[in-house]
């Protein structure tokens, strides 16, 4: 007999809707939606469709990688922070670059004024990479490069560095964010027109499939799309559409899906309703596996894995009562672990104001370590599996994400949607609706529209901008330009330009150029001559 719920008609309850639009019932039982997925009883982690996790033993075998985002000033200062984090138990690096590097400009470019080493570390030549990763074993610590518009150059530098230090590229691991399509939707470090930008991403995927097979050349980011105003369903749907677009373009070059699909990874956002996020990830894993197997006919199990980094949720943090963000990020960490993430990175509590201080970076690190060591989070795989609510929501989220993807396809696909600015327009409209909802008290934020408090003027310590480091960076760049073999550099930049005109894979020529210490700005500049720059459609 199925259990029944006794309704108390006198007790008035409010209707609850998730951000994705799904209605939440006050109680879930062994009924309805829960049974809609006929396979749920048999679903196991490590088995298709991987709803419960991509590995059979998950954290029991090895906890998620801790990969805090770090980087500031020059490579010298950043190397110190890297070593501090590793010494304190961090197991991977997540590298932040300054905006000049991300936009493909050298540190002495007039447009880089005030930006050198400000929001991340400045990189001009391979020498800077040699300094930044000095003393770090690239076999033991995997490195994630958070760069998009100029990613091809930074990836080339990483491979050149690894080769120089004697690592075998066949075994080199690591990740680049390198998801340019989401940069057009949010974050904004695009450089080239949309089609040329996608071409560069595909160049890196193709090159890695052939020469660096364990490297993840792309981390598709729902994260920044959600940060820009998308709801959790759109976050997943747009990310999957983007991942499919890169896959389609790669396959057009005659590369088999199984040669690269397992190296695609994802980066997702956490803030918002706890259960909605967990269901989003479980549903996402199931749906991505189905897409890869049913639509793309992948043969390899790993090609169906939705591997992810999750833990951050900048838009959920508040400037008001910033210490509350420590609590919020701890919840985000819990959500991420309950969702079966591969890698975790938390925002620091002061990130709404400034880049993390050593203290705030340490608190974030300890937050994850406390969860691993004290809370038993690693003992059992997918501990929420089988929950009436979570399983029901997982089924509903899967259907909703699928529907949203169909909508994008019907409108001509994600590349077109981004190029015309239609996706950006929809996302920005939602950001406004969300802001209004917070202003009107429909969405509640503690310290912002409830439990407000007069605050002391300076609640947090600011990480100071290191202007001296910026000056040293410019001097170093000038010295390097003077001492390198400039004739050779000129020749190799011409090869990059020619290869761009010939429309062949640019990785080999870019790697050759960085090895001779061609700068980020010179290589991107050469490509701009051929490709031109993106003309942003103005939508809001």
């Amino acid at each position, binding site marked *: 007999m199925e259990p029944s719920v006794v309704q108390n008609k006198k007790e008035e309850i409010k209707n609850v809707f998730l951000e994705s639009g799904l209605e939440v019932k006050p109680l879930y039982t062994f009924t309805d939606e829960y049974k809609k997925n006929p396979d749920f009883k048999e679903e196991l982690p490590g088995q298709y469709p991987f709803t419960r996790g991509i590995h059979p033993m998950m954290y029991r075998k090895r906890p998620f990688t801790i990969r805090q985002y770090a980087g500031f000033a020059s490579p010298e200062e950043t190397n110190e922070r890297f070593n501090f984090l590793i010494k304190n138990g961090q197991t991977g690096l997540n590298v932040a670059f300054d905006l000049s590097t991300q*936009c493909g400009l050298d540190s002495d470019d007039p447009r880089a004024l*005030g930006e050198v080493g*400000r929001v991340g570390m400045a990189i001009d030549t391979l020498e800077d990479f040699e300094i930044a990763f000095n003393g770090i074993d690239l076999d033991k610590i995997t490195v994630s490069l958070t760069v998009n518009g100029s990613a091809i150059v930074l990836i080339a530098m990483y491979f050149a560095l690894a080769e120089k230090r004697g690592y075998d590229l066949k075994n080199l691991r690591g990740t680049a964010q390198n998801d340019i399509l989401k940069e057009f939707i949010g974050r904004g470090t*695009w450089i080239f027109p949309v089609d040329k930008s996608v071409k560069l991403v595909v160049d890196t995927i193709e090159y890695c499939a052939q020469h660096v097979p364990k490297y993840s050349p792309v981390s598709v980011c729902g994260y920044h799309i959600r940060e820009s105003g998308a709801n959790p369903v759109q976050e997943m749907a747009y990310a999957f559409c983007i991942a499919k677009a890169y896959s389609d373009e790669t396959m057009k070059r005659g590369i088999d899906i199984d040669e690269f699909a397992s190296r695609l990874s994802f980066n997702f956002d956490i803030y918002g309703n706890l259960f909605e996020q967990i269901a989003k990830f479980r549903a996402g894993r199931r749906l991505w596996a189905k897409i890869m197997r049913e639509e793309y006919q992948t043969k390899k199990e790993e090609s169906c894995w939705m591997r992810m980094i999750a833990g951050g949720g900048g838009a959920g943090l508040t400037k008001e009562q910033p210490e509350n963000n420590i609590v919020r990020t701890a919840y985000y960490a819990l959500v991420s672990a309950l969702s079966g993430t591969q890698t975790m990175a938390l925002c620091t509590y002061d990130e709404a104001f400034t880049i993390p201080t050593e203290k705030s970076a340490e608190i974030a690190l300890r937050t994850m370590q406390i969860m691993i060591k004290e809370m038993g989070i690693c003992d059992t795989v997918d501990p929420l599996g089988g929950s009436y609510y979570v399983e029901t929501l997982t089924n509903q989220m899967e259907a909703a994400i699928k529907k949203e993807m169909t909508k994008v396809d019907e409108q001509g696909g994600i590349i077109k949607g981004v190029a015309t600015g239609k996706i950006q327009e929809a996302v920005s409209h939602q950001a406004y609706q969300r802001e209004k909802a917070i202003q009107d008290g429909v969405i509640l934020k503690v310290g912002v529209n409830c439990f407000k408090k007069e605050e002391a003027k300076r609640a947090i310590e600011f990480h100071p901008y290191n202007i001296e480091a910026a000056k040293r960076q410019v001097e170093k760049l000038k010295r390097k330009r003077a001492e390198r073999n400039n004739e050779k550099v000129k020749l190799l930049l011409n090869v990059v330009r020619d290869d761009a005109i010939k429309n062949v894979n640019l990785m080999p020529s870019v790697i050759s150029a960085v090895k001779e210490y061609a700068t980020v700005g010179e290589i991107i500049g050469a490509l701009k001559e051929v490709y031109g720059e993106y003309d942003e459609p103005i939508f*809001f």
Partner: protein
Amino acid sequence: MKVLLAKPGLDGHDVGVKVLAHALKAAGHQVVYTGLRKSIEEIVQKAKTENPDVIGLSILSGTHQILCEKMNAEMKNNKVNIPWIVGGNIPAEDVNALRKTGAIEAFPTGTQIETVVNYISNFKK
């Protein structure tokens, strides 16, 4: 009121400026937005052709002081006399220094959208 919203420098965070654009439109103002990564020179030229009642700069990367000083110089060099404001990721203690650069108002981190909209709506031409 005609408002020119601009993103100077390399910062690509445009959620805030777009939300403000929506809110200003909803309050009945006319909004022109430059798009991302414009130089101060480009913004001043845009101001000359658009002739807005007020210009708003949105800066979130921390370069507000340098960019506002440049804005002031460029406006003077071009003899453009349009009031301008700045907002974004700005520590409250930087507000006075920004006012000294020539910004008629600076809106620090945590400012409600409504506050900026009200400021512009009550602005005397």
